[in-house]
């Protein structure tokens, strides 16, 4: 068993090391596998080598030193990695020592810490699978460890040990030897143990899922692990007011519908036909959402902007009406296509505002973010920014100064450490002079390049540089965020004010509903550059993005569909915000609960509607595989289990009462005659000792009575009586009526003969 324990421990430590190594992208932690294997054979099994505690402490000290150097010499991510490396080093130090109980506990703790550190470094789906495998291994290892500790030797607590515990006592009570009752096959580890360990792990994983889904996302901080800046406290989704490079990756694999768009003619209020929709929107329409102007440490943020303006009513007759219904995205941002002239909310008479400088459309503060929102936009068929650029001409002097002096200046700012990017930008644009040409050249640098590819995989080649530099000079592969960010910084490098815009690009037209549906995987980022008095839209993301989007939308096989479902679920889970949790988990359960309660009340009041709704549910197989269906099954199983449990308890109670009364009757019947026999003898001063069996008693204690028994032909009868007693008492046989009568008669004879003798003696 010791060997199995060490093998399991080795596997667990190796797995945690590999997980950490893959998450970090460095082979350092993977060395745990080699060290674990080496120590398994040389230290644990063969016991040829082990490091004494003093040397181990020295190694530990060195580990702290090395980790400390890493910590103070790196950026935020390096500091986190320093902590992780320290855990790895300490794991190695414990592995090379002879393992006692505390060493094994330390190794288990360090391995889970490695897993936790890895969870901060990666968001890929493989981590979920690895965590499941780790759970199985860890449960198995801890179970075997418990078995090993419990059964290790028989603990003889000797007199010496007792005396050590009780130094002042002169009376030592005694010694004890611990016992072990093994399984039927006398093996401690068998297939049953494995099965129960697996079962426990599965149960644990179910509870893990419950904990994960139902733990409220009450984010109490404003910090991220890999950034030392405080966030502004807004919810993190893929397209909010602040984006960290890499955030959008998981969104781009999510097929959840974000908004529905219905187009109609303003004048006639007639809906667009499909052809009109496509001709107006184009193949991949851009739906403008949030605008971010400031870039720092791999993160784009919005500038604080309180300049909210209402839309001018004179623009409300723009020819195209875009009617939007947005799902709760946890953001006040609203989306629009093309040249937006006017916007207004539809429900509750909420207001819609426009930010003066960024031209974003946002909803009223009072509009709840956790509910769908409907609004309409009136737009022209002109180019983007046509209306607003005209309006800018009528700004006050003060606003113009703010826009030019403040806002545009901000849009030219480049953080420190971007020298290579600046040099590259200037190199590309050195032959042109106009800003528009420069912008096009920079845009085409990505579009026409064969070096740059579109990918949703995120991999950091060099964590010590800015993510944009890493993308431009190392990876050359990424999604729209990286392309847009790079273009924006490069534009700024040549003095062109530019900003990052996040929204959606593309969608799907649903003929049946006559709606244009936009999903999360259509999320996109692009750039707006302020050139010659108006904002120009630039999109440097390669055209292969469209293929990627199409791939996400239509899986080619059922396995791919299942894989996509898992990936979607995983991405939803790791990005789960408070709002999403309420929408996806709490609210449906609450609604089902309320509905069930209402149905139950109806049922109790005998209303037919509840039966009808139940019947509708049972006859609609499509509803079975839903949260409602799951809830129904859960309630049904709970009721069935309760009914079975109640029935069994009642049955056992009734059976127990009957059995006890039968047993009492039988017991009385069984022992009564023997009890009388003993009573008769007791009167003669002959008593059965507790140490004597009935046979021994009869064989040895009746010698004095032998003469009397002989006289009455009873000398052999006590032995016969005892035989009958044994048959009835232990052999579960019933006494026949004839036998009972015979015994009764003999007992009377015995009693009489002994009483007679006593009288004669007197």
């Amino acid at each position: 068993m010791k060997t199995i324990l060490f093998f399991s421990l080795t596997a667990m430590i190796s797995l945690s090391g590999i997980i950490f190594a893959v998450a970090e992208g460095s082979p350092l932690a993977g060395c745990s596998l080699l060290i674990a294997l080496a120590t398994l054979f040389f230290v644990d099994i063969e016991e040829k080598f082990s490091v004494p505690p003093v040397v181990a402490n020295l190694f530990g000290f060195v580990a702290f030193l090395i980790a400390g150097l890493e910590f103070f010499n790196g950026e935020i991510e390096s500091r986190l990695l320093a902590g992780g490396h320290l855990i790895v080093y300490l794991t190695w130090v414990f592995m090379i020592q002879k393992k006692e109980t505390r060493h094994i506990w330390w190794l288990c703790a360090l391995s889970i810490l490695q897993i936790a550190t890895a969870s901060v470094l990666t968001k890929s789906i493989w981590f979920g699978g690895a965590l499941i495998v780790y759970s199985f291994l860890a449960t198995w290892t801890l179970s075997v460890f418990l078995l090993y500790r419990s059964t290790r030797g028989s603990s003889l607590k000797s007199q010496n040990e007792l005396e050590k515990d009780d130094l002042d006592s002169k009376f030592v009570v005694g010694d004890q030897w611990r016992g072990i009752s093994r399984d039927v096959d006398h093996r401690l580890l068998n297939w049953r143990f494995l099965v129960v360990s697996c079962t426990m792990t599965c149960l644990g994983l179910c509870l893990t899922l419950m904990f994960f889904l139902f733990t409220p996302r009450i984010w109490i901080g404003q910090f991220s692990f890999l950034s030392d800046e405080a966030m502004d406290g807004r919810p993190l989704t893929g397209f909010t007011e602040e984006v960290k490079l890499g955030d959008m990756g998981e969104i781009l694999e999510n097929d959840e519908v974000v908004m529905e768009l219905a187009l109609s003619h303003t004048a006639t209020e007639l809906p667009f036909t499909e052809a009109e929709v496509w001709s107006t929107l184009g193949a991949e329409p851009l739906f403008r959402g949030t605008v971010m102007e400031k870039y720092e440490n791999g993160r784009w943020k919005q500038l604080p902007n309180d300049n909210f303006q209402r839309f001018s009513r004179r623009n409300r007759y723009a020819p195209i009406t875009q009617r939007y219904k947005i799902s709760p995205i946890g953001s006040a941002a609203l989306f629009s296509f093309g040249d937006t002239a006017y916007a207004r909310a539809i429900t509750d008479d909420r207001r819609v505002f426009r930010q003066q400088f960024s031209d974003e459309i946002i909803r009223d503060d009072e509009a709840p973010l956790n509910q769908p929102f409907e609004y309409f936009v009136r737009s022209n068929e002109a180019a983007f920014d046509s209306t607003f650029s005209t309006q800018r001409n009528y700004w006050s002097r003060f606003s113009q100064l703010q826009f030019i002096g403040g806002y545009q200046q901000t849009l030219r700012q480049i953080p420190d450490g971007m020298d290579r990017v600046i040099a590259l930008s200037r190199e590309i644009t050195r032959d042109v002079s106009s800003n528009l040409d420069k912008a096009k050249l920079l845009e085409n640098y990505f579009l026409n390049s064969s070096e740059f590819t579109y990918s949703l995989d995120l991999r950091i080649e060099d964590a010590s540089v800015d993510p944009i530099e890493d993308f431009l000079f190392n990876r050359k592969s990424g999604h729209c965020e990286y392309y847009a960010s790079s273009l924006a910084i490069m534009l700024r490098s040549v003095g062109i004010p530019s900003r990052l815009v996040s929204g959606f690009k593309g969608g799907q037209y649903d003929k049946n509903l006559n709606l244009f549906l936009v999903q999360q995987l259509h999320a996109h980022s692009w750039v707006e550059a302020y050139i010659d008095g108006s904002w120009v839209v630039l999109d440097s993301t390669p055209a292969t993005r469209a293929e990627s989007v199409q791939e996400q939308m239509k899986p080619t096989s059922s396995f791919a569909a299942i894989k996509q479902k898992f990936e979607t679920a995983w991405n939803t889970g790791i990005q789960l915000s408070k709002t999403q949790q309420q929408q996806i988990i709490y609210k449906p359960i609450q609604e089902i609960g309320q509905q069930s309660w209402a149905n139950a009340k109806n049922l109790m009041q005998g209303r037919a509607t509840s039966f009808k709704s139940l019947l509708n549910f049972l006859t609609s197989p499509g509803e079975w595989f839903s949260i409602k269906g799951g809830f129904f099954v859960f309630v049904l199983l709970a009721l069935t289990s309760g009914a079975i449990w109640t029935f069994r308890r009642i049955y056992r109670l009734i059976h127990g009462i009957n059995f006890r009364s039968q047993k009492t009757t039988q017991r009385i019947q069984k022992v009564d005659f023997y009890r009388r026999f003993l009573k008769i003898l007791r009167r003669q001063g002959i008593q059965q000792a507790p140490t004597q069996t009935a046979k021994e008693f009869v064989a040895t204690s009746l010698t004095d009575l032998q003469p009397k028994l002989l006289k009455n032909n009873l000398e052999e009868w006590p032995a016969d009586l005892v035989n009958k007693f044994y048959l009835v008492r232990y052999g579960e046989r019933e006494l026949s009526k004839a036998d009972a009568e015979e015994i009764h008669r003999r007992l009377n004879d015995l009693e009489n003969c002994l009483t007679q003798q006593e009288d004669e003696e007197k």
Partner: protein
Amino acid sequence: MRSHFRRGRISFPGVIFMIIGLGLVIFEMQTGLLLNRIGTTGRIVIFVCGTGFSVWGLKEVIAGFFPGYSKTGYSFKLPQEGYLYLVIMFVFFVGSLIGRNNLLLLVFASLAGPFVMNGWFTFTMLRLLRVSRVLPERVMAGEPFTTTLILENRKTWLTIWLMTVHDAVSRGDFWFSPEVLFVRVPSSSSRQGHYQLRLKQRGAYEFGPVRITTRFPLGLVERGNRIEIIDEFLVYPRTGHLTSVWRKQLQNSTELVSGVRTMAGPFNDEMSNIREYRQGDDPRMIHWRTSARTTELMVREYEESRDRDLLLIIDGWLPQQSDPVQEENFERGLRFATTVCMEHLRSSRISSLYVRLTGEENLEWRGDQGEAHVDELLDAFSRTDGNYQIEASQLFEDLDRVKSGKRRVVIITARPEEVREALQANPEHRLQDAQIYGTSREELLPVFIDSDEVGK
């Protein structure tokens, strides 16, 4: 003497849970965090959880101080590694909320799930269990014996694993806890386990109650259940050996009183008849001529000393404030008395033995009523305690009905001088021929080899 009392103790998990529960409620009331973030539902949930934790913690604290009030006998204990596990969980949880990291929250959940599962599983395994104990009837002090514990799993669907059954053996202020580990007990079945004990002191021991604990499967939570099965177990005084000096002294005392002249034999006894050899007979008693003739070993049986009736008076006096030496002398006296009784009963089936034992409770015992009564005598020896209020003269009251010319009288006492004076002061008892033995080591050494002296 130090003792291992089972005292009430502070339940630290209970205290921690109380603090957590109250803390949650107070925090929510002061800050309204969940009310603002989630709504009324969140507030209700936190109040329910906090109240639940507080109540459960309070129950554990009370149960720790007053175990008798704990109805079901269930106990909960968090070992060191469990505490560390919870600390790690807490760090992950707080870290995930601070860092807004769902994956770290998933790691926290992957710790919380198995922890809750461990707690539930241990609780469920402990239900519907029955323990019974099989003890030997009696045992002699210093003799190893085996106790069997039978663990019955009355559940119909769940096998139990790694259950440790802790028995409790106590006598007065002393107790210790032997245990048996049951690796696996399938549902609706039982398993037996044994542990061995060697009790070095005579007396009435109490076995029980029994406590069943388990930490399966992760070893992070220990749950237990107490089952009240109490058995009383008597440990007889350990017997030693009587020396030849003892027999000689008895013979001499008899001759002086009754004037009987005996022929010298191996034990200075008179030969009465020849009988078959029995295990334990002295080889010097073998009558070789008869043995050769009958082709089986025959021994001479001597009548006088061994076949005389014996009146044994055991003085159970012990000073009120006795020191360990006096207590040891008292015990030695009992061991000597036990040895004398057993030796007398074993060596002769004809003569009778009469024992008067004085102590906390007095005993008058006659040994001519069969073997059944020997247990009664030995039980009394094991139970008896010293009594400081016994007067020396009380030892000899109402002895006329049991005294006879043929009966030898032996008095075992820790105050031999006082007893001699009492005898001389009351000649009407006619016990001047009584052989008085003190219980100190020096006084008994010539006639009695104590079991502890063997090998020294």
